[in-house]
């Protein structure tokens, strides 16, 4: 036991506190009444006026806080953290046709981003080709359109894939996009063991929050686990899954729910992989996570620390993982899109800065910072560059990266870390009692929680209990500056036509019978319950389109329609 404080000191401090409350505090209160009756974090946790050693009096340093790189990893998963290597500056990007995204990637690399992250357009996210009737008007708008292997090759034209790692935010079509990435890297001469990156590939949160689902829950999870299994065997540097809380948070959950539901999703996936006969230490080191970073500064920092501690415990005690790396919660963070305002958009730079700082102080492995024009459109170069520079200033000028987990020992932060952890455990217990996350999702439990929390938040804003500058305080009637924010120019129709033409050419030039053979082999493998990835890879190389492959899978697995939950 390495108790931080001895009981004598605590007693003395308690007495001092009493004295303080009697003599010092009332004078302050008389001068200024406190600004609010109650101060709460965004998760509704009440924040006291003052935190002292008394609040963490029973702390066992080694058990609760520990040292970075050692169980329970509260202070970080690496001993040196950012002194050894800065977090990856990985800007989520993509729009228009593959050529446009290729340009944007090169722009960001030129300006110092250290990891790539691809955003796909809606048709691609839900497995539709650019010429599908439902894709009309949506091609290339919120991300890049990818219909076939050709598109992936164009995206990486002039970018050597052996030198970069790429995150792909893709879920149901993850097998297809991963195959395209691998095939493209292959054609560049990159060996499998050099191919590095991440596929988001987290179906459970699609049902809860992001809603780019395609298949019903069980097949969706099966497919995702196929990706993990194949990747673990073939791509030693690849993170096949990014268990995500970002979307859950953006959809309206609070910080506690964000980590609780994410961790519950993770538990479900681990169980599935173990059921397949995989040894936990074979895949656990390759699991990664993805969190939001919202604007309540200390809550977010505490949240990350709590999440790391919880996951380490779960992997060690629930699943008996033996390798150190199996206990690490490695995560990417994105600053909270939902905290940005359409009003006075330049303020968003400040919000993103504070959120980025919190993510760094929380020990993230990789970070995306939002651009100021997100409430309007996919970012312009101007805005994306400022967002990237934000990270660089934090890394190189502020000194926060020069020591590990600097806020450890703060009475408030340690107390808050504990508080968040305790509340998150309660959610996880409830989900366990429901039979696990898949059952909970089918019952609509996390969806309902999110709906409730988001409605409550909106009411709080409208009742003046939560403040948003420019929205309910310091509101400006006529805002000149919005009109001057330079927005990205996308000629959507032109992009759509370009993609449609390309598809036509693809369908004309490829070997049709080869495509058909690959697709029917894929269908049979899916029906038999085999791992579909090798078959998807073959289909991709034969130039089957994303839509064709997804349609084949839809025939076998069906399509999901969500229940009405308010």
């Amino acid at each position, binding site marked *: 036991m390495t108790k931080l404080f001895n009981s004598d000191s605590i007693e003395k401090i308690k007495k001092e506190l009493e004295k303080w409350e009697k003599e010092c505090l009332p004078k302050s209160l008389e001068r200024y009444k406190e600004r609010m009756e109650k101060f709460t974090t965004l998760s509704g946790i009440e924040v006291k006026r003052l935190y002292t050693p008394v609040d963490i009096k029973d702390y066992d340093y080694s058990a609760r806080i520990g040292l970075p790189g050692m169980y329970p990893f509260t202070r970080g998963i690496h001993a040196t953290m950012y002194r050894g290597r800065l977090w990856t500056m990985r800007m989520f990007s993509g729009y228009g046709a593959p050529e446009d995204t290729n340009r944007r990637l090169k722009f960001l690399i030129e300006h110092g981003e250290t990891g790539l992250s691809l955003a796909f357009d809606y048709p691609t996210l839900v497995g539709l080709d650019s010429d599908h009737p439902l894709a*009309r*008007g*949506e091609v290339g708008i919120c991300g890049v359109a990818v219909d076939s292997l050709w598109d992936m090759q164009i995206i990486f034209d002039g970018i050597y894939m052996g030198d970069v790692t790429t995150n792909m935010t893709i879920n149901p079509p993850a097998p297809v996009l991963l195959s395209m990435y691998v095939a493209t890297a292959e054609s560049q001469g990159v060996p499998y063991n050099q191919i590095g990156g991440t596929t988001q590939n987290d179906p459970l949160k699609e049902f809860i929050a992001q809603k780019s689902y395609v298949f019903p829950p069980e097949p969706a999870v099966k497919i995702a686990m196929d990706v993990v299994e194949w990747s673990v065997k073939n791509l030693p540097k690849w993170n096949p899954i990014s268990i995500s809380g970002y979307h859950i948070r953006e959809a309206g959950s609070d910080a506690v729910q964000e980590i609780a539901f994410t961790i519950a999703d993770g538990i479900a996936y681990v169980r599935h992989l173990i059921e397949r006969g995989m040894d936990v230490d074979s895949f656990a080191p390759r699991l990664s996570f993805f969190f939001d970073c919202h604007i309540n500064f200390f809550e977010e920092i505490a949240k990350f620390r709590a999440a790391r501690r919880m996951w380490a415990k779960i992997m060690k005690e629930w699943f008996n993982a033996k390798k150190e790396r199996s206990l690490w919660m490695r995560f990417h963070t994105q600053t909270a899109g939902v905290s940005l305002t359409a009003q006075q958009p330049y303020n968003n730079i400040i919000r993103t800065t504070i959120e980025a700082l919190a993510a760094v102080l929380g020990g993230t492995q990789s970070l995306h910072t939002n651009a100021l024009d997100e*409430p309007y459109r996919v970012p312009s170069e101007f805005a994306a560059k400022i967002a990237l520079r934000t990270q660089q200033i934090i890394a190189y000028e502020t000194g926060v990266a020069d020591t590990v987990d600097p806020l450890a020992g703060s009475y408030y932060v340690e107390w808050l870390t504990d508080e968040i952890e305790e509340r998150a455990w309660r959610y996880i217990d409830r989900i366990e009692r429901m039979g696990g996350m898949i059952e909970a999702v089918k019952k609509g439990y996390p969806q309902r929680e999110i709906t409730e929390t*988001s409605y409550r938040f909106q009411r709080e*804003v409208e009742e003046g209990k939560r403040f948003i500058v420019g929205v309910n305080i310091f509101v400006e009637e006529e805002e000149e500056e919005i009109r001057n924010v330079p*927005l990205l120019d996308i000629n959507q129709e032109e992009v759509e036509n370009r993609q449609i033409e390309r598809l036509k050419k693809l369908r004309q030039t490829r070997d049709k019978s080869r495509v058909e053979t690959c697709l029917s082999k894929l269908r049979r493998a899916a029906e038999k319950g085999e791992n579909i990835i090798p078959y998807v890879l073959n289909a991709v190389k034969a130039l089957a389109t994303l839509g064709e492959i997804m349609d084949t899978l839809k025939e076998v697995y069906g399509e999901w*329609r969500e229940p009405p939950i*308010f």
Partner: protein
Amino acid sequence: MERTSDILKGKRIKVLVAKLGLDGHDRGAKVVARALKDAGMEVIYTGIRQTPEMVVEAAMQEDVDVIGVSILSGAHLSLMERLMKLLKENKMNDIPVFLGGTIPLPDIPKLKELGIDEIFLPGTPLHTIVEYTVKAANRRRK
């Protein structure tokens, strides 16, 4: 919140809340649907991934007073143009339509030209939307 039963005696206000296009971000649509319900209206929520044709049919079958659309994918110009055209073809352009989502300011005049009655940017208070919906429904009934 205003109680529409106090404002409008007799037939309740019926609103269709729809998510057009492939965009799955339904937080706003659901919050607005709930606020309208709390204000005493009958709200039909279509769910995500609706085509303009599906929205028009639903509005027709449910005989709604107002249509609210949410689009956060950026595809609003194309989708709303198709929707407004269909409404006109079906002689339903007397039904006020309001739109919410990630809308760049330069697009607002274009959207108004299409016949969209009101556009609500992120950060719009719910009571503004509720009040607008009541007024719009009233206007139509006169």
